[in-house]
């Protein structure tokens, strides 16, 4: 055990901090509006140009070969400097690990650099109107077209985050109509500008057009855009889902920065008489610390080659509920002013409420913890 950062890690942190403090843009609008998205893309491209977009990737694809620990350090510094949530995250954090694991060399070379450079913008096509928590209920179909050397997609995806602003979608389609549930699905990569694709954006809770429905009407996709084996899409996708649930999407830096802002809010607005809110502020801060150190412990285990399996469900529940509590505490400190939200906490609260829902609801995650971490019997 050595809980001090190495000289290399410290130097990496210094380098991150210096660049981010000088470059993080102030006052960006929400990336979930059309105008905001465009502004965010400029920032993403600036990150890429300075090789900070995908620090953990190999240099050849635009990264720095950063270790997982360095990646955590980057994330801490990113949020500490006030960096905005990454509009490219679904590609970088959800699709890319799958491309690294299952993609052909040709796919990797074609997809990853443009993703890193924010030239191709990827959204996730998992959910359907009747397949939310129950992803295995997917009914969108892929029909074989041997003549053309590919597949024809039809059906509908929905709840696609930032789908209206993206250029590409990765998603699961039922390629074997006779197979049921998790079987017979294939993982496709689809440009959204090809014939037969219709994208309709729609509003999230906070009014931003952060969601989209994507309709597929006999959309041709060549074999080159199948990721992993045909009919094995579930297995391929679960690798992605597991990273979504685990480390990559919610690095501790975000919650440490939020807890620090909450402490600032307490200093500014806290009423010394209201020790109930004070206790909640302290709890949020401790929880963010707990999340940070649990992550260091986990990253060390991963680095040592341990397989974490279902443990990422523990993490998903913890960060998402910490995020809600932290924002609730901020609203309590704001009192009647919470309604007006000049400070952005109310909008942050609404965003936080999505945490226990997306990427597998916390009810599903708790089932997974009980069944796969604790070994309780399935229903």
């Amino acid at each position, binding site marked *: 055990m050595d809980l001090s950062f190495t000289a290399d890690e410290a130097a990496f942190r210094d380098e991150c901090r210096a660049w981010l403090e000088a470059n993080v843009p102030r006052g960006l609008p929400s990336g979930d509006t059309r105008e905001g998205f465009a502004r965010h893309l400029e920032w993403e491209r600036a990150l890429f140009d300075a090789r900070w977009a995908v620090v953990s990737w190999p240099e050849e694809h635009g990264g720095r070969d950063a270790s997982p620990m360095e990646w955590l350090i980057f994330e801490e510094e990113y949020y500490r400097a006030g960096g905005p949530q990454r509009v490219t995250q679904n590609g970088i954090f959800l699709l890319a690990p799958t491309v690294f694991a299952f993609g052909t060399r040709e796919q990797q070379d074609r997809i990853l650099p443009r993703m890193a450079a924010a030239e191709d913008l990827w959204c996730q096509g998992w*959910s359907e109107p*009747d*397949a*939310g*928590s*129950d992803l295995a*209920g997917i009914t969108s179909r892929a029909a074989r077209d041997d003549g053309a050397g590919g597949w024809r997609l039809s059906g509908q995806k*929905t*709840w696609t985050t930032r789908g209206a602003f993206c250029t590409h979608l990765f998603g699961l389609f039922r390629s074997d109509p006779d197979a049921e549930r998790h079987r017979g699905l294939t993982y496709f990569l689809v440009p959204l500008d090809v014939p037969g694709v219709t994208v309709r954006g*729609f*509003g*999230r*809770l906070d*009014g931003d057009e952060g*969601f989209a429905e994507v309709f597929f009407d006999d959309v041709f996709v060549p074999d080159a855009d199948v990721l992993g084996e045909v009919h094995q899409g579930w297995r391929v996708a679960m690798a992605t889902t597991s990273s979504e649930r685990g480390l990559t999407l919610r690095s501790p830096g975000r919650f440490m920065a939020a807890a620090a802002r909450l402490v600032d809010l307490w200093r500014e607005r806290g009423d010394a*008489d*209201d020790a*109930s*809110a004070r206790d909640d502020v302290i709890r949020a801060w401790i929880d963010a610390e707990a999340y940070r150190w649990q992550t260091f412990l986990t990253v060390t285990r991963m680095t040592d080659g341990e397989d974490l399996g279902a443990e990422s469900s523990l993490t998903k529940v913890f960060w998402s509920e910490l995020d809600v509590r932290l924002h609730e505490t901020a*609203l*309590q400190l*704001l*009192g*009647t*002013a*919470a*309604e*007006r*939200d*000049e400070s952005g906490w*109310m909008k942050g*609260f*609404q965003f936080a*409420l*999505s945490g*226990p*829902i*997306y990427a597998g*609801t*916390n*009810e599903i995650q*708790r089932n997974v913890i009980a069944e796969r971490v604790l070994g309780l019997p399935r229903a």
Partner: protein
Amino acid sequence: MRFAFTEDQVAFRDAVRDVLAKECTPATVRAAWAGGGSEDAWAALGAMGVLGVLAPEAAGGLGLTAVDLVLLLEESGFAALPEPLVEHGCVAIPLLDGPEPELLDGSVRVTAPFHHDTVVPYADHADWFLCFDAGAIRLVPRAAVELEPLESVDGARRLARVRAPDDAGAVVADGSAVKQAFERGAFGTAAQLVGLARRMIEMTVEYAKGRRQFGVPIGSFQAVKHHLADARIALEFARPLVYRAAWSLTRGDADASTHVSMAKSTASDAAVLAARRALQCHGAIGYSYEYDLHLFMKRTWALAAAWGDAAWHRDRVGRAIL
């Protein structure tokens, strides 16, 4: 001790419920976000006497009490009525010594700030503004005030900061009335929160019965059941405190402010819990702007903070009992 409403009170509640079901649909609430009015609802409430429940019969009111009003306020919460019913009917009317008929019949609206503030809801459609200062309460016409629109999490509330010259309008009460006006506002808001909680629970039960995942209705999962049971329990134990506050205000009970604070804190917590559980049980659809749930959640978050939030009111209870 008899803790029940009369048949007349229940019939009045049912009539208001029916009217609001027609005149204040989710589409009405959405229209309010876009600045649209809900004139039909307001006029109907005026015609039914709801705005003048607390006004003397001599002035054309119903000459009734907070006990008669509380179920109607609850219904207005259930409908997320985007109108200043609490500010007008609960806060302002009792301050006026013989209100003008137009204040009772739904022709005009009075709005009011809460909690020593100058921020008022439903500002753009309001005709009169209550302004509090240290020594007096003034009723100021629209023409005499300046409004600075403010964003609210609930766009239907159309918040604004009011500025009025010191001598604008007419003094309608002296400073001693401020405290009671605040109690009535907090009480009325608590009643609306109880209605909101009920609405969100009902919507979610309906959704959970129909929505299927894993081959069964999601409402058959124990986790969903327990989420909603918790919300229903919180509602069950908030409601009596709100009704009891109505009684205490009506009787001028010496502990009425403590009773109001118990009502507001408990109703705020119950409605916020109902919102949380409703959203979680809905999942992504509840998180979308096109679905109606957010209209009720956002009203809940706004009203839970308005007129003193739960912690503020609990602190007030603490100062009385500890």
